[in-house]
């Protein structure tokens, strides 16, 4: 696949390395001449110096034949415009934008960007998970369907420990799909499954009902 990356900072640099390892054709567009030069001397001719929002630069980069266009500069507005130009001027089928301000994720999607990745939200999520008071972690969101896959840990002090799943009322549209015991043995949860402390449950749910699901499984 031909992948264009705008922004040769740390993120763009390591992204390029890993995509090249997977044998993709990759091109970085970097605004800063010195950074562009150092990428070229390090990885060969995978980088052009220029503004990734400019039509002329994108034309030179062959954006019209790109399969994926990824904008990972440090500025949300630059990532938005680069992706919009790629999408609407060069008809790139898939555009991915890095978002610094998590509030912009919804906005970018409304404005036509296919995928947004919010570094802030991801880091927050991971740190939150390390705080033991929050037993729910988002694993994946299925945006087109409005569903998400979450992991819920049964807290040792929760009232559901020792209860059978059939006695726990779950919110609608929530499905428990996998249960991992403390001994790392995975199983498919059924009505007769008895919850134990520190069980991890992988569930499909709605963003609106994830709180209710967490509370149901932890007996609150």
């Amino acid at each position: 696949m031909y992948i264009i990356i705008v922004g040769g900072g740390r993120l763009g640099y390591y992204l390029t390395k890993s995509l090249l390892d997977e044998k993709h054709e990759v091109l970085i567009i970097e605004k800063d001449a010195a950074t562009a030069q150092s990428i070229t001397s390090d990885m060969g001719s995978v980088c052009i110096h220029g503004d990734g929002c400019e039509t002329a630069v994108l034309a030179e980069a062959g954006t019209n034949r790109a399969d994926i266009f990824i904008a990972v500069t440090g500025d949300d507005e630059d990532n938005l415009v680069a992706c919009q130009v790629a999408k609407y001027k060069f008809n790139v089928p898939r555009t991915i934008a890095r978002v610094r301000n998590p509030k912009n994720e919804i906005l970018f999607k409304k404005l036509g960007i296919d995928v947004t990745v919010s570094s802030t939200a991801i880091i927050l999520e991971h740190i939150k998970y390390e705080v033991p008071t929050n037993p729910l972690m988002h694993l994946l969101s299925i945006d087109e369907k409005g569903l998400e896959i979450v992991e819920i840990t049964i807290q040792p002090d929760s009232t559901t420990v020792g209860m059978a799943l059939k006695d726990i009322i779950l919110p609608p549209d929530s499905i428990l799909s996998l249960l991992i015991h403390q001994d790392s043995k995975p199983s498919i949860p059924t009505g007769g499954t008895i919850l134990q402390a520190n069980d991890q449950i992988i569930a499909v749910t709605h963003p609106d009902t994830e709180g209710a699901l967490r509370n149901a499984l932890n007996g609150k």
Partner: protein
Amino acid sequence: MKVIIMGCGRVGAQLAVMLDKENHKVTTLDINVDSFRRLPPEFKGKALLGNGLDEDVLKKAGIEEADAFVAVTQGDNRNIMAAQIAKYIFNVPKVICRIYDPLRRDLYSMLGLEALSPTTIFAQMFKEKLES
């Protein structure tokens, strides 16, 4: 008319003063407090410090009741993003932005954004002056 002007540089400040004199309700927005020095003491409108790409700041500026939004910061992309927020998120009836890059302006006007490119306008005006 309630107008929000994002970017209180030379153009933004001058536009704010012109509209203020005609008794429109003007709010200027800038991320740099220094920029407000361009507003004269008799300016009756509001000057708000904040980032116009932030929905909360825009709400504070009264974008939900605004009749018009103008984006004239130094950054083309900032203007483009702010204008799209005003138009598509807050449904402001009249949204205009400045885009220096003529090609980018053409693309976004094609996409439905009202945008002016000073580059094109001035080049055209200079040409006309030279020919007259």
